[in-house]
């Protein structure tokens, strides 16, 4: 154990540690607490400059209602789901297949293809921007949810393949060999052995991709123009421009944008962290 467990330290250290942890947590979260506090305030507090004192009114629900009434926030949120969920399903399905192919078959181009997926995943978005936008235009999918989803699925395939391939590679190979000797076809090996065994990886990947795509801003700006298809990140940005001074509404909107990934994180914490830290504990 490193550092030495606090329980083995003198009393004074234990007490001060237990005090220090919540204090530092509070300091760490000040920016987030600030926005939560602001989202329950009324316009009165904002114009009076009361940012840190007790809110004079509790208006969280009024603010949320006002956001929904005066802005297309509801459409933005629905769009975000319409973009995120198909992307998760598409990218995870495709990468189960590519991951399986790269993990359990030996062929010449194997490592080359694998490294191509990894390299592509790290490329700066800007080098893809103009051709992808053109391509989407030509397919008649510019400013549509479908166009954005197609690109997201393609791009996330890089990271997902890396993830799935390493996971399947770590499964005992004897399992596949035994099935092959029994005469199981390759497709059935995939469906009946690999897919059930990779369930934890599928879960981890799904939460991660959900968060990545929900939080995407760049591609939403490049491939979407109108409110009908705009996700909440891009929607917030356009509201940010309009509402320079109505911070309480902007705060309420920001919280709405943050809630789904936060819930996802808390429900699937173990998987989420397992996915993010893949490779952090072994060489």
């Amino acid at each position, binding site marked *: 154990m490193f550092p030495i467990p606090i329980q083995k330290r003198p009393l004074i250290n234990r007490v001060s540690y237990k005090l220090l942890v919540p204090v530092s947590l509070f300091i760490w979260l000040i920016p987030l607490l600030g926005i939560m506090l602001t989202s329950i305030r009324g316009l009165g507090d904002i114009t009076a400059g009361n940012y840190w004192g007790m809110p004079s009114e509790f208006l969280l629900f009024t603010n949320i209602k006002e956001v929904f009434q005066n802005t297309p926030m509801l459409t933005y949120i629905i769009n975000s789901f319409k973009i995120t969920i198909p992307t998760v399903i598409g990218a995870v399905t495709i990468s189960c297949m590519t991951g399986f192919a790269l993990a359990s078959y030996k062929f010449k181009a194997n490592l080359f*293809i694998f490294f191509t997926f990894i390299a592509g995943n790290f490329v700066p978005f800007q080098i893809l921007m103009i051709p*992808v936008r053109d391509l989407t235009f030509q397919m008649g999918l510019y400013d549509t949810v479908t166009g954005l989803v197609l690109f997201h699925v393609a791009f996330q395939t890089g990271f997902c393949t890396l993830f799935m391939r390493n996971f399947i590679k770590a499964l005992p190979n004897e399992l596949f060999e035994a099935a092959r000797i029994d005469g199981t076809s390759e497709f059935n090996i995939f469906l009946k052995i690999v897919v059930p065994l990779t369930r934890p990886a599928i879960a981890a990947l799904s939460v991660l991709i959900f968060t990545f795509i929900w939080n995407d801003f760049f591609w939403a700006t490049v491939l979407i123009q109108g409110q009908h298809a705009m996700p909440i990140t891009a929607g917030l940005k356009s509201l940010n421009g309009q509402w320079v001074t109505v911070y309480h509404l902007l705060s309420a909107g920001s919280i709405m944008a943050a809630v789904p*990934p936060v819930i996802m994180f808390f429900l699937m914490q173990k998987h989420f962290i397992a996915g993010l830290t893949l490779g952090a504990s072994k060489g």
Partner: protein
Amino acid sequence: MPNSNQFTYRRSSWWKRNQQRLTPWIFLFPGLLLFLVYVIWPIFNSLYISLLQWDGLSPAIYVGISNYIELLDDEYFYISLMNNLKWLIFFMLAVPIGLGLAIFLNQTIFGIRLIKSLFFFPFVISQVVIGIIFSWFYNPRGVIGPFLDKIGLSNYAILADENFATYGIIFAGIYPQIAYCMILYLTGLNNLNTDQIEAGRMDGAKGLSLFKNIILPQLKPATFLAIVVTVIGSLRSFDMVAIMTQGGPYGSSNVLAYYMFETALSEYGYRMGYGSAIAAVLFTIMMFYILFFIYRMYQSEKKGL
């Protein structure tokens, strides 16, 4: 009739003979196709577009490397490049800070799991939201206003200050990155080899020397990953800049990622060729890191085989 029977028999045996060889390609097909169309081909296409003068509508004119020559004289390009460098340098602080936080939190007291996940919170939230939070934080008529008044900096707006706007954005950007590094190190600390640490302690290693000689080497995989994601994060600074300053004031907080977008797609004009040239520079910088990462992975793959 017998002929067709023979045919199916032969076909199935052909499939049987080649199943092992063909299956991987069948499984790779959809993923590989999408990836080639949407990621690999666009890279080369962008490099080609960088040799054109093109507004996206009228016919493109081939101009050779003149876009790159123009870049050499572009003041805003240098400002953006320098800002990218600042991002890179200051973002690296996320690694040691994350390590420090991880060590601080690697204890088992009541509620520590919840505390760890609350520390991790900023990473889960969209950068757009983080950007909004911080721009409202920095607003002199906003949250830190009262504090600024106290230290005699009334009405000071860091995001409107040419000299410091970039640092204001970097500070906001590093906040979620610290959380990411912290979680990487927490996992690393969790998987430390206890025997080695105990042996080290027996030999009298304590505090800093224990940390330097025994802990840090074991955390190498976590450190490697933390550096990789931090470098990539620092070069993907688009979201924060777009939300907080849009490159201003006077382009002083611009970065290559945003400058490229601005030249190619915003009201400043649709200069696709010039934008692609900027993207190509950014791509080249990133390529060093990608190749380094691939090389590392290739080494460990060879060991694994």
